[in-house]
C-alpha cells in the first residue's frame, strides 16, 4: 500500500506529528516567517542559445560578439535599448524580450550568467587535459536536461533537486494537506520526483476528476470496484506502478477540484500561448493556496523548440515573445494576488549553444548558459556570475566554437533558489550533494 497520502503519513508519523493536519493548525514556520513561498521553473527545452538572450553592449565586448556571431549577430532594432546593470555595465536583451528587459530595468529580474552542470569548478586546461571530473555525456540533450533537473552531474539520479526539496517540505510538514508540493504543468519529469514524494502532473484547463460517475448505486459500485484494484499487489511490478499513478491521480483530483472551484478570475490577461496557459494555471493554483493548505509549492512549466541548429533568428522571434509575455503576465498576476514577494520564477534549459554559427543559420549544442530569475524577492537589475570571454578557443571555451565552460554550477543556482524557499543551510548539501565542491560561494546573492 503506497498511495501518496499513505507515504506522507509515514513521514509525518516519524517526526511525531499529525498525519492529517486539522484545519487551522499551521506549520511552526508560519508563525515566525512568511507563510507562503513558491518556485516556478520554466524549462526551455532544446537548449536556448542564451548568447542571443542578453548581449553585453560595451564597445569592446560587443565588437568581439559581432566578430564571431556572423549571421546570428543581433544588431540595431533586434536588441532592446541598453539597460545598465547595478554594476554599471551596459547590456541589451533580444528585442523580443522587451517585457523582460523592463522587469530587469525595474529590478524585478536578474540574470545569472554562464550556469551549467559541473562536478567541480573547471578550467579550460583541466577540461582539455582530462585533469578534472566533468559531467557525463556533455552536449547531449537528454543527459544535460537530467543534470539540470537532478543537479547530479555524473551517473543516474533517481530523484530531482526539486523533488528532494519537496521531500524536505513533506518531512517537515510545511504543507497542511497531502496535495503534492511539486506540480508539473508540463508532464512527467525527473525534476519533481523525490525519494518519498511524487509530483502531480496536470494539463492546464483539464480536470483530473474521472468522468462518468454520479451518485447512483450502479455508479458508486463501479467507483468502488475501480478503486479496490489500485491497492492490490497483482504480482507484476509495472502494474503496481500504473496503479500507483492512477491512485495518486484520484487522490489529488478531488483536493484540486475543490480548491479550484474557489478561483475568481484574475484581471491579469495571459497571452493565449501554451506557456501562457501553463502560467495562468499556476497563478490560479497559487490563488487558492489556502484552500489547498499549501505553504510551499514548486511548479514546473516548459516551452520547447529551442534546438536551433538552423533558422535560429526566425525561431527566436517566435519563441522569445511567448516567453517574455507569459513571464511578464505571470509577474503581474503575482502582484495582483499580492504574492509578488513570495513567488520566484526561474529558467532552466538543456544547455546554451555555440557562439560560432553553423552553415545553416543556427548554432550547435554547447554548455554554460545565461538564465533569468524574476520575482518581487529577486535582487534584480543585476548580472550574477560571470559572462564568458567571447573568444573562440579562449579561456572559457571548451573547444574552438564557443561552448562556454560554466563558471556557475546548477548546484549554486538551485541552492540559492532553495535557500530562499526555506531549505536551511544544514540541509542544502542533502539536496545538492555536489555543492561542497564549490567552496564558499554556495549561494549567489540574487535572492534573500
Amino acid at each position, binding site marked *: 500500500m503506497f498511495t501518496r497520502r499513505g507515504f506522507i503519513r509515514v513521514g509525518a508519523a516519524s517526526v511525531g506529528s499529525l498525519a492529517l493536519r486539522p484545519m487551522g493548525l499551521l506549520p511552526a514556520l508560519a508563525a515566525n516567517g512568511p507563510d507562503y513561498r513558491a518556485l516556478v521553473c520554466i524549462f526551455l*527545452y*532544446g537548449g536556448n542559445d542564451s548568447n542571443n538572450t542578453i548581449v553585453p553592449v560595451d564597445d569592446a565586448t560587443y565588437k568581439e560578439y559581432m566578430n564571431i556571431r*556572423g549571421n546570428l549577430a543581433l544588431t540595431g532594432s533586434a536588441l532592446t535599448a541598453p539597460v545598465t546593470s547595478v554594476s554599471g555595465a551596459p547590456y541589451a536583451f533580444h528585442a523580443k524580450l522587451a517585457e523582460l528587459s523592463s522587469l530587469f530595468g525595474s529590478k524585478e529580474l536578474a540574470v545569472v550568467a554562464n550556469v551549467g552542470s559541473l562536478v567541480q569548478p573547471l578550467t579550460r586546461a583541466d577540461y582539455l587535459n582530462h585533469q578534472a571530473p566533468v559531467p557525463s*555525456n556533455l552536449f*547531449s*540533450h*537528454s*543527459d544535460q536536461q537530467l543534470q539540470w533537473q537532478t543537479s547530479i552531474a555524473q551517473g543516474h539520479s*533517481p530523484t530531482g533537486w526539486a523533488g528532494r526539496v519537496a521531500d524536505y517540505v513533506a518531512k517537515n510538514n510545511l504543507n497542511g494537506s497531502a496535495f503534492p508540493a511539486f506540480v*508539473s504543468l508540463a*508532464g*512527467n519529469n525527473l525534476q519533481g*520526483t523525490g525519494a518519498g514524494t511524487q509530483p502531480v*502532473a*496536470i494539463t492546464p484547463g*483539464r480536470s*483530473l*476528476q*474521472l*468522468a462518468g460517475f454520479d451518485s447512483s448505486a*450502479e455508479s458508486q*459500485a*463501479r467507483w*468502488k*470496484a*475501480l478503486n*479496490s*484494484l*489500485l491497492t492490490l499487489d*497483482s*504480482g*507484476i*511490478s*509495472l*502494474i*503496481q*506502478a*500504473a496503479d500507483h*499513478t*492512477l491512485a495518486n*491521480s*484520484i487522490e*489529488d*483530483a478531488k483536493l484540486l477540484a475543490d480548491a479550484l472551484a474557489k478561483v475568481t478570475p484574475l484581471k491579469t490577461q495571459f497571452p493565449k500561448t501554451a506557456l501562457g496557459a501553463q502560467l495562468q494555471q499556476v497563478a490560479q493554483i497559487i490563488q487558492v493556496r489556502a484552500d489547498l493548505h499549501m505553504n510551499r509549492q514548486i511548479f514546473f512549466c516548459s516551452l*520547447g*523548440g529551442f*534546438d536551433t*541548429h*538552423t533558422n535560429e533568428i526566425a*525561431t527566436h522571434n517566435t519563441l522569445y515573445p511567448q516567453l517574455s509575455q507569459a513571464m511578464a503576465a505571470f509577474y503581474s498576476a503575482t502582484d495582483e494576488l499580492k504574492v509578488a514577494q513570495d513567488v520566484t520564477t526561474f529558467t532552466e534549459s538543456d544547455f546554451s549553444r555555440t557562439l*560560432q*554559427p*553553423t*552553415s*545553416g543559420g*543556427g548554432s550547435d*549544442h554547447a554548455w554554460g548558459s545565461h538564465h533569468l530569475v524574476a520575482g518581487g524577492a529577486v535582487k534584480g537589475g543585476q548580472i550574477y556570475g560571470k559572462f564568458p570571454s567571447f573568444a573562440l578557443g579562449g579561456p572559457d571555451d*571548451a*573547444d574552438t*566554437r564557443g561552448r562556454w565552460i560554466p563558471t556557475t554550477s546548477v548546484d549554486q543556482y538551485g541552492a540559492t533558489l532553495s535557500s530562499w524557499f526555506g531549505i536551511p543551510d544544514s540541509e542544502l548539501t542533502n539536496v545538492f550533494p555536489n555543492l561542497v565542491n564549490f567552496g564558499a560561494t554556495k549561494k549567489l546573492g540574487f535572492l534573500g
Partner: protein
Amino acid sequence: MKNNLSKTVVTAAILAGVALAQSPDGTTALSDRAAGRFLDQATWGPTPSAIAQLKQIGIAKWLYAQFAATPSDLPDQPELGADGKTNRDLMPVERAFFHNALAGDDQLRQRVAFALSQIWVVSVDSGVGDAYAYPHYWRIFRDNAFTNYRDIIKAVTLNPAMGRYLNMANNNKGNPKAGTAANENYARELLQLFTLGLVKLNPDGSPTTTPTYDQSVVTNLAKALTGWTYPTAPGATPKPNNPAYYAGQMFPVESNHDTSEKIIFDGQKLPAGQTAERDLEILLDALMANPTLAPFISQQLIEHLVTSNPSPYYIQRVSQVFSSTRGDMKAVLATILTDPEARAGDSGFVDRNFGHLREPILFMTGILRGLNATLGPATSVPSQAASMGEDLFHAPSVFSYFSPQYRTEKGLLGPEFQIYSTQTAATRADIVNTILYGKLDKDTTVDLSPFLKYAGGNTALLDYISSVFIDGSMSSDLHKAASDAINAATTPQRKVAGALYIVLTSGEYDIIH
C-alpha cells in the same frame, strides 16, 4: 551467403519458438493465453479471429505469413492545400494509420515500422510541417521492417524529411570566411539515438564506462555528412542547395562536401579527397561493424514489442543474432518474439518485472480492435491518442514520446511511463468511459454485440472479456471487481459497459504482460 545465413537463423529461431509455444507433449496447439500474449506483442492487439487464426497455424507459419503479407499504405497528400499554401493537414494520414492498424493484414510489419519510427523520429513539432512528407517517410520503415538495419540507416540518412528535421539537407561544409562550421545535428543524433548510444555496450546490453564517441567525432562526422541537398522537385532546375522537397532521396553536391580527412569513432579514418557518397558508405560499414549497434538496437526493439526490463541473457540472444546476420530484421524479430523469455509467460507464470505499459496508440488500437470498431473518415482517434501524450507524427523532439531509459519510481525501466502521468492516467479512463457510455465521435463506432451475447452470466461475460483483452488470464481480483460492477448494473448494455470499464481501466490491461 548473407541470405542463406539469415534464413537458417530465422528458421532456428522460429523452431525454438514453436517448441516452446507447444505443450510439453508437443501435440496441442497454442493455448488461448499463449496466442493472446503473442498477438499483444506482435500486432496492434488480439481479436477473437486473430487468436483463432494463430492457434490454427502456429507461430512459425504466422511469422512467415506476416513476412509475406501485402504491406498497407498511407495515402499520398497534396503538397499544397486548397488555399495554395503549404498543406499541413496530416489528419488524413493519421486516420489512415489507425485504419491500417485496425484492419490491415500486415500487423507485424506495421508494429515494427511504428517501433522503428520511434527510434528514427521526424516530427511536425519544430520540424517538418508538410503533410506530404510523412507517407514517404513512413514507407522507409514499412518497406524495411523485414530487410536489414543497414538499409534503414541509409534510407533515413538520405531521406529529405530527416534531412530537414536534423539539418543534413543543405549542410554545407564550413566557410572560414563567413565564420561558419558544419552543422552537427544529424551527426550527433545518428550516433546517440539511432545507432550506438553514448557508451559502449557489452553484447548483453550492459553499459561499459567507455564513451562511444566524443565531441571531436561529432565535429568530424558533421563534416563527413556535408554536401547533400534535397531532391529536385519535378520541373525545377537542380541547385547546389535545392529548396525543401520531400519525395525521393537527397543527392550529393560535391562542391559543398568537406573533403578533408576525418577521424570518426573507433579511430575509423575517412581519408581526404573522398566524395560525399564514399564517406557515407564507409560510415555505414563502420556503424554496422561496431559491436555496440546490435545490443543498442536489439534492446530498444525488445522494449517496444515485449518487455521494458529484458534480462541481459535475452538481450544477448537477440543481439547475437543481430550481429551474426549483420542486422537481418527478420531474424532479429523472429528471435525477439520466440525467445524463451518472451514466451515464458504463455504457460501461466509471469516474472514480476516482465511486460510493458501500453503506450497511448497501442492502448487505442487494442481497445478498438477488441471492440470491433469501425473508423469513418472523420474519426477522432488520432486526437484521442494525442490527448494521452502520443500525438502521431508530432513527437515533442527527436527524443520521441518517451525515452528508452525512463524509469518508474521504483527504479525499473518503464519507457512508456514517461507519458503516463496523473493527468494522462485520468485521460485514459475518461476515453474508456466515452467509448463505453457515449461515443468518441460520429465516425468511430464500436460493436458490443459479441459481448452482449454473454451478458446473462457474470462468469461467461468475464471469460469472454478476458479472452479478448487479458489474454484469457484475468486475475481473481479483477474478476471480482468487474463482477461487482456488473451486479450493480441493471440492463445488459450497462452490465457489459460496467465490466469493460473496470477491465480496460485496470493495470492488468494497461500492462502487456
